[in-house]
């Protein structure tokens, strides 16, 4: 099935170049790390054969659209397409610039779970088919079910099919969950306050402030991020209070905009489950305002709109 997707993407890209509908095509190419296929920009028709698609293409390609002027072909699964909707609503890219190749998504593999399953042996190659994938390394091969190794956000994905596209490369897949579930967030919410503070402080302890979670996120495109303002809002050292300040303020900047693609959690070099903050905001946005980000170009984002009878329990 993955092989089928890859061929389809190449075909479409080739056609788009031939019909001169696009100047560039943004997708993935095979790199040297099977868990992190390399985002790539194809500008010549002969390079379309480099394009691939597999269950590790988990970075949100919308991140590469900000401010581009060309006509762009881009592949987009559910969460990426929703980020593209948000990008268009926030005037970072125009709809007419884009030719979106929709991909019904089966969910992305969690490389940390896979590494743990093979006791951290080096994996050189991954082959996959419909339901299974096989990891190959020096002197060992092992097969697993995709279902057992999906990323957290993919397990509870409510919109695997692209919400916006010019062409879709396969039949839409069935949705995993009718409505988003936030059990892990409820669990933290119900912790007594001291335990919750300790849980969050322990969780952020290893953060090295490399800002990969911010730089991989398509929502974070401010020319001068609040992190880099000349008169800073928080200190630059790895002081725990400053690290916590960064993460909650960054999460709050994504409130009502995050499509839970999981890229931030995937790139964290020390494996922090960093999504709990933004997932808490997504939970409240859904439960209080029944809001999910990036579902339609007609709907203004959460904080850019209001209803007179919005929930209001203020004094």
């Amino acid at each position, binding site marked *: 099935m993955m092989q089928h997707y890859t061929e389809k993407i190449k075909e479409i890209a080739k056609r788009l170049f031939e019909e001169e509908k696009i100047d560039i095509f943004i997708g993935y190419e095979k*790199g*040297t*790390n099977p868990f*992190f*296929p*390399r*985002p*790539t*920009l194809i500008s010549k028709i002969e390079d379309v054969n480099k394009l691939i698609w597999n269950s590790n293409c988990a*970075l949100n390609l919308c*991140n*590469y659209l900000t401010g581009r002027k060309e006509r762009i072909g881009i592949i987009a699964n559910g969460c990426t397409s929703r980020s593209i909707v948000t990008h268009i609503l926030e005037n970072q890219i125009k709809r007419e610039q884009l030719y979106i190749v929709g991909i019904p998504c089966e969910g992305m593999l969690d490389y*940390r779970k896979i*590494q*743990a399953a093979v006791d*951290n042996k*080096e994996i*050189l190659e991954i082959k996959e088919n419909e339901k299974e994938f096989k990891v190959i390394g*020096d002197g060992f091969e092992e097969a697993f079910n995709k279902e057992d190794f999906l990323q957290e956000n993919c397990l509870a994905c409510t919109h695997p099919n692209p919400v916006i596209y010019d062409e879709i490369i396969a039949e839409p897949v069935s949705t995993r969950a009718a409505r988003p579930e936030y059990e892990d967030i409820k669990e933290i919410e119900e912790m007594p306050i001291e335990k919750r503070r300790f849980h969050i402080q322990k969780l952020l302890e*290893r953060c*090295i*402030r*490399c*800002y*990969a979670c*911010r*730089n*991989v996120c398509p929502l974070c495109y401010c020319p001068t991020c609040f992190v*880099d303002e000349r008169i800073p809002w928080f*200190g*630059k*050292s*790895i*002081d725990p209070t400053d690290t916590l300040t960064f993460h909650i303020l960054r999460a709050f900047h994504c409130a009502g905009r995050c499509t839970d693609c999981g*890229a931030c959690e*995937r*790139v964290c*070099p*020390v*494996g922090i489950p960093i999504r709990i903050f933004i997932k808490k905001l997504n939970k409240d946005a859904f439960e209080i305002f029944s809001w999910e980000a990036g579902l339609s170009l007609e709907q203004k984002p959460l904080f850019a709109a209001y209803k007179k009878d919005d929930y209001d329990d203020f004094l």
Partner: protein
Amino acid sequence: MYKLFKKEDFINSLYKIKDYKIFVPAKEGYYHFFSPLEKGISPDFSFFNTRLSPKSIIYPQSERMFEFSLNKEDPDAFILKEAEKEFPLQAIIGIRPCDAHAFQIVKKNFDNPDYKDPWWTKRYENTTFIGLGCNNPRNTCFCTKVGGGPFSEIGLDAIMYDLGENFLIKVLTDKGSLFLKKIEGGKEAEETHIKQAEKIKKEAEAKIKTDIEIEALLKKGILQVFEADIWEEISFPCINCGICTYLCPTCWCFDIQDEVYKDKGDRIRNWDSCMFPIFTLHASGHNPRAEKFRRVRQRFMHKLKYYPEKYHDGVQCSGCGRCIIACPTNMDIREIANKMSKI
């Protein structure tokens, strides 16, 4: 001088050492980190390598350099004083040869004829490096291509060979022998052990097959590589985060920031990254490296061209492969080095 230790004896006696602060590789969550040896921390010497390099043991990510008072009444208000801190004797047990080699590369920056960085040099001098050779280098390792090797002794005070149940320890320096006197239970090694170790070393070296054209690259002119039209394409995937520079054992760039709380102030040194735009942003708004491709070019030019040009001692990379493993967009230094050497 070789000594042989039963693994359990070696590990148990580590707990008994009092006058050294011991760092060992320990698993926490998905990754290994060098952690201080205390109750509850069990060293795992069957690890591949730690996720973060051991550089933070000598060169902490955030360090208080100076303190000062901002209270006008104080006699020495506004005058900076070096922050009081001790530099205890410490030992890193199980450091991989590539990371030890990295400290020698970084030493050229922090300990040079013109200036010595007081904090880095003091901590470095008080640290004993007990290396653990790599029986199974990986595909992302290329230490042999940059002047090192799975059993290289550069920057080590002793090197351990993992012979299965035993560690064969080859003492290399006085610092090493001084430390090893603290470990009980060692006995003289026999010829067979040393032969076995040699065999393991040869096999390990043969396992490193990755091709990276360092010699060809060193011959190329700096301007030639700088002005090549490869950089826009190479830099496209990069998201300019700090993962590669913060995980890299040979990256040393830093930032200095002042912080004030009420009338007490601190001057703090933090790690910094050439990947961040504000690294070179002038107060006037001018930024010599404003575009992403310039920053990506700077990183690889510094490691593979500027450092060799300045110190004439090989590249500023020890081949540990952390940046290849951790980069979210698969910027592979080996591929980029080969592109640079073929322009």
